[in-house]
């Protein structure tokens, strides 16, 4: 059962970047020009030390969003109660604008792969994920957002498209969608579907956040590497997403070969600029 009164509402935070260890010194000493910050939840489950001190300082200045990688919402393992307790405790302390994770699975037999493995898009998987999202939302007492992942294989058992599956999960579980524009582009290339068709089919009233990132062309496939600037083709898809969904809180991810903070902020600034170009002056940054 969902919590009474739970309904999806979309808060617009503006344009954010990920809080990464490489930039901790800057975050401790100044307030970089960005609207909000996303943290990898699991990186802050510690009892103390520098990461939490940095997050305390950042949270005092800016809205924070918690983004997890280990919820494993699609796994047939039981939900990890200890993990959810840690997540809830962190959320209670830092009051994130929202909590997100991925529409995937990453554990089996109590063993973690620390990866975002794709699901077969079947009715069985849909029912399973919907039940678990509801359970998680009951435990956390708040809605979560689920992100579409990049994938390299598909399952012959699938009876629906990824976007149909994503939309149905969000509708039936009453959760939000973190729409990763780069992941749509990567998966579209790898599986041969039209990324613009994907965008058109996603329920607009469920989209609470965008992710943007870079990827690598491996010849036989695109790999979601988060180690480079956002490619032009992904920016184009982002423009289309802005036209379709309007103002949506947007974050540039960069997790490997992380550049200096100023370069990351410039990528975030570019997202703000493109959004403004598509929507006009009403889409100016939340924080000037």
């Amino acid at each position, binding site marked *: 059962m969902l919590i009474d009164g739970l309904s999806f509402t979309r808060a617009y935070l503006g344009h954010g970047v990920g809080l990464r260890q490489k930039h901790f010194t800057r975050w401790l000493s100044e307030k970089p020009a960005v609207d909000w910050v996303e943290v990898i939840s*699991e990186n802050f489950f*510690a009892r*103390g*030390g*520098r990461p939490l001190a940095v997050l305390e300082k950042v949270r005092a200045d800016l809205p924070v969003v918690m983004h997890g990688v280990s919820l494993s919402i699609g796994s*047939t393992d039981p939900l990890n109660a200890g993990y959810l307790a840690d997540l809830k405790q962190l959320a209670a302390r830092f009051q994130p604008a929202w909590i997100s994770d991925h529409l995937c699975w990453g554990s089996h037999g109590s*063993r*973690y*792969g*620390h990866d975002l493995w794709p699901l077969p898009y079947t009715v069985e998987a849909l029912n399973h994920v919907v039940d678990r999202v509801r359970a998680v939302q009951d435990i956390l007492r708040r809605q979560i957002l689920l992100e579409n992942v990049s994938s390299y294989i598909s399952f012959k058992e699938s009876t629906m498209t990824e976007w149909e599956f994503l939309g149905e999960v969000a509708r039936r579980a009453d959760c939000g969608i973190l729409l990763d524009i780069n992941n749509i582009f990567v998966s579209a290339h790898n599986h041969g579907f039209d990324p613009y068709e994907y965008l058109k089919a996603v329920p607009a009233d469920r989209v609470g956040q965008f992710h943007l990132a870079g990827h690598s062309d491996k010849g036989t496939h695109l790999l979601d590497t988060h180690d480079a600037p956002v490619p032009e083709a992904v920016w184009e898809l982002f423009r289309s997403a802005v036209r379709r969904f309007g103002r949506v809180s947007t974050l540039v991810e960069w997790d490997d070969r992380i550049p200096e903070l100023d370069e990351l902020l410039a990528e975030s600034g570019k997202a703000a600029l493109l959004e403004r170009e598509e929507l006009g002056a009403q889409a100016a940054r939340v924080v000037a």
Partner: protein
Amino acid sequence: MTLAETQAAFFSLVTDPEQIETRPELGLFDERLRIYANMYLWRLVDGLRNDFPKLAAVVGDDDFSALMSQYLRQHPSEHPDVGQVGRHLVSFLRQNRDPTRREDLADLAELEQARSEVFLEADRRPIDGSAISELGAAFPQARLRLVPALQLRRFEYHVAPVWRSIDDEQAPPAPLAQPNEVAIWRKEFAVYHVVLAAEEAEALRRALSGARLEQVCAAFADQDSPAQAAFAALSSWFVEGWVAALEIDPG
């Protein structure tokens, strides 16, 4: 296949990629499964390399990957935090000593692990040494409450010089079998370690176990100037931020 069967087959193939070719009956054969298989190993080995950079530097990149692959076969990740994947590495290295590798690898890994634990340990503001002079006659019965971000570890090999040589980008010295005890602590956000003299290690062990100050100071009884030695050690503990409180038993 049910969802559970699909996930079992996928997990089996990704974590043991030799099956991708040898067990097509699992029904998931796809050359692109190797992407997931490669990422599985790469991600975990990379996580271990981040957590044990000195160990990686000493054994070299190729051997580190081989060693960690062996480790992961015995100890796959069982925790949602990838930072926990190395928590059995020290015991693995102790139980799987390889004569072709340095003998001090387990101790070096233990020092790295202890430093990581201390780095993320709970915060507790230390007090300064003036508190001890205010104890007066209560001094012998008082107890030190030490900060959580402080550990005492006993090693079979002398790994502190190995650590320093890697920091200095020098070739590490040969392993030296010499039992020693090392204090590892965090001051502000920086982590430090130091090899302690035997009597100071004993005093610290007593303090960590909650002994009274007279018992802590008795660890220096065999020194030429026991009171002076105890005073010097306790003073340094305050300077390094090891002491969170002084407690006096009621009554």
